């Protein structure tokens, strides 16, 4: 929760999506990216809530721009701190997964 530097699962998805979409980084594009890659139809509200939280933590910043047609659109950009946290998360995950072979675990463990 605090700035201990590890991301929650959905936060991680949002940040990764932000990197994937590059310039088109506004809420809906992120939602679409996540939906396409994960097959989960996440809600725009969930994406926005996470983005706001991440912004407050200082991982990213947002600017209000005009979309084509003159309507407002909020675009997000990853900040260095965010990139650092993302890297740390990846590292942590990698360390945790090291040597784990799920398929070899067998089914007896009470799925």
């Amino acid at each position, binding site marked *: *929760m605090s700035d201990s530097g590890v991301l929650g699962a959905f936060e991680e998805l949002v940040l990764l999506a932000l990197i994937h979409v590059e310039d088109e980084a*506004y*809420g*809906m*594009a992120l*939602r*679409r990216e996540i939906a396409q890659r994960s097959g989960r*139809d996440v*809600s*725009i*509200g*969930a994406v*926005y*809530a996470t983005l*706001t*939280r991440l912004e407050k933590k200082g991982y990213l910043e947002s600017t*209000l721009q005009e*979309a084509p047609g003159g*309507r*407002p*659109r*909020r675009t997000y950009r990853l900040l260095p701190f965010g990139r650092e946290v993302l890297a740390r998360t990846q590292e942590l995950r990698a360390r945790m997964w090291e040597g784990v072979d799920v398929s070899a675990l067998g089914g007896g463990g009470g799925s």
Partner: protein
Amino acid sequence: MTWLGERILRLVAGRSLGPSAATELDEEFRTFILPERGTLRARLWYGGQVLRSTPHFLRLRVRGESEAPNGVGGASGFGGPGPEGPGDGRVRRILRSTRFAFRVLRRRPVLSGAAVLTLALALGFSTAAYGVLEAVLLRSLPYEAPQKLVWVHPDWPLAPAHIDAIRANARSLTEVGGFERRLLNFLDGNQDPEQVRGAAVTANHFDMLGSGPVLGRGFLPEESQPDGGNVIILSHALWASRYGSDPGIVGRTVDLGLPVPYTVVGIMGPGHRPIEEDWAAWVPLRLDPASEGWDFWRSAYAIGRMADGSTPDGVNGEVAQIIEEYVTRVPGTAFRIEDLAEARVVPLEEVIVGPVRQGIWALVIGVGLLLLIACANVGNLLMALASARQRELAVRRALGADRGQIVRQLFTESMVLAVLGGTGGMALAHVALPAAVRLLPPDMPRTDEIGISFTVLIVGVGLALVSGALAGALPAYLQSRNDPGVALQGSGRSGVTRVTRRTHTGLIILESALAVVVAVGAGLMLRSFNAALSEDPGFNPQNVVAVRPSLARARYPTDQDRAQFFMDAQERLAALPGVEEVGGILFLPMTSGGWRGLWAVIGTDLEDEESWKGISNRTVLPGYFESMGMRVLHGRSLTREDLAENQVTVVNQAAARLLFGEDDVVGREVTRDSELPPRRIVGVVEDVRQGGLDADPLPEMYHPLTAEQVRGGLYLTVKAAGEAEPVLLAARQALLDLDPRIPIPHAEALTATVRRSVTMREVSALGAGAFALFGLLLGAVGIYGVTSFQVSTQMREVGVRVALGARSTRIVRGVVVRGLLPVQVGVGVGVASAWMAGGAIESLVYGIPARDPTTLLAVAGILTGVALIAQVGPALRASRADPVEVLNQE
């Protein structure tokens, strides 16, 4: 649908995130989802996005407000919303009990589902009804200071000269304008020749209404002079459909089939509301000073703007005086002063929406009653739910939850139901309202303005909250009063107190009474419609078609040409295969139009105004009575020979009685003007319901067609030997063969025309029927719910009785009798209320008394039957109770 979602999204997401979230969702919806999934599924997706996003946004905002470090709600292990610390934010507390309420309701899906569905239907109906009320009655007309506009004397047209006199002399009116209804033929443009309704108006017409053309200009004062230019202003819709919205049309001429071309000078905006629903073009009204009298064919109406401080009554007095002076000064104007003295100056708004006012209020009251039933129902369901949770609540009280917390929790549950029901209701109204509007008769005023506006939405939300409060208040209060000790003792009837049971009974009485009132209203509407349908129109519409060609003056310059056309047409139609008889009339029964004139009997004192009686005049081609199957009661019908002579007439029974006080008046003479030769009555025909199946017949006179009377064009009536439809097509074609350049604005089977005259009744009967069905359904659900709840609380008692040898029939009877009693009381109260309210709906009812015993009895019977059926299930369950099992459960 999506704009509703967008509003909700903006509301919950707040000012900083709302606009961008809404924009993006909309963009995604349009560019990706809509093409991929199709309209319906895309809309569902949109709705789903909004619903699922709402909690996220709300949580975000609550956290943002309180800035609490620990955002996870502290739901306690008891499954309650948890203890409330003094530092808890109010919003947070509400959120927490809301979440808990959701959990409680989800645990009883059938019960909560029924409650939500009930509320959704009732709120949907109510919101839609409010939408109608707001658009038609509450919203002021789209004119400048509309409350100051009055229609002078809407029942009887004035001569243009009278309007001029009023304009010159009336001090209580700051402005006076006149108009005449006109039918205009459009022969050019990109569509077939077409006839539209329009008006000739004075130059100040648009200024008076506070609206003006969006393109070009309005009329100039000199254009109202007898030799003013021939100019025309088009409605936005006509401009779009006929001239492809070409702005270049302004300044060009259009072909109206008149001897001179008309120049388009202006186009009205799409928002302009004509005084009468369907006007599509305007020409200047010529106030010809030479024609001072009341010209037979000139029937103008006056619109005025009241000066500050004047009232319609004041204007009325002044106008009557002005006309009286004028008539004295210019004798020979056939205008009866008493008609004016009793005449009214009516607010314009009243003329436009007055006819539907009562019907709409009836709708709103009916829907309001439904909503009350729904609230009573949900209240009952919630009480049942709360009683079943007696122990849980008692445990929580014992663990220190105070009364306020319990009440708040129960209240929150009903509010959650109301919000869910309200959301469903709004969606329902949004979908159903446009569909319902399409069912309304086209001449109903202001239907195009009906919709879910922002105000309507707010009212809908308000209604939902009030319903939630109503449904939740009583159960919450009763629960809070229950003594936790009793419930915890583990025995007794699950702690159901006598107060609770009495409240149940009271709600059932209320619900049954309301359901009776709604159903009686619906029954009356249905029976009225039926009564109107079975009314004899005075003619036989079976296999009769009517066609009305509209002759362009350029091609038929003289009245003689026009008369000749109709006689040729009659011959041609009569020669068609399958045609039995052809006649013609102006105006056809049950179509709007007609003119009234004053007639007096020769031999009475013509100086005495009492001798002159108002009678509706029709012009007919011989063959009319035969084609319509109208019976000639005395004397003879009209023949071709009468056309030339033009000195005879046929009256209907009502006219004979009005003029002579008797039926057989053949051979008597009447006059319209002491200067003209009198007319001899050659026949008396039966009365026709000219105004519609549910309108009383008027005194009427049928004159044989003469040259000067065909300016308006006749309806040709064709009686077919067999089916009407092929004859209708053949008749149309025969007229076009005669002249391919004529618009045929009316071509319809007479049965359809007759049916349309009661469309309003049909619509209200259908609507009211749907209400009643819904009301009864709600009543049944409520009664079922309460009975089965009561049975479940009495299981122990029943078990004891079964153990002691009571027979199952006795048990069933006991349950049913006990359950039926409050229903009977409610039915009694409802019947009494319906009886008392009967007077208020007198004018909506036709052909039956407003306190119709048949309807009252039938409704009482049906509701009792429904109540019986609703109780059978629970009663049987009680009778099958296994004493051992029941007693062991405790």
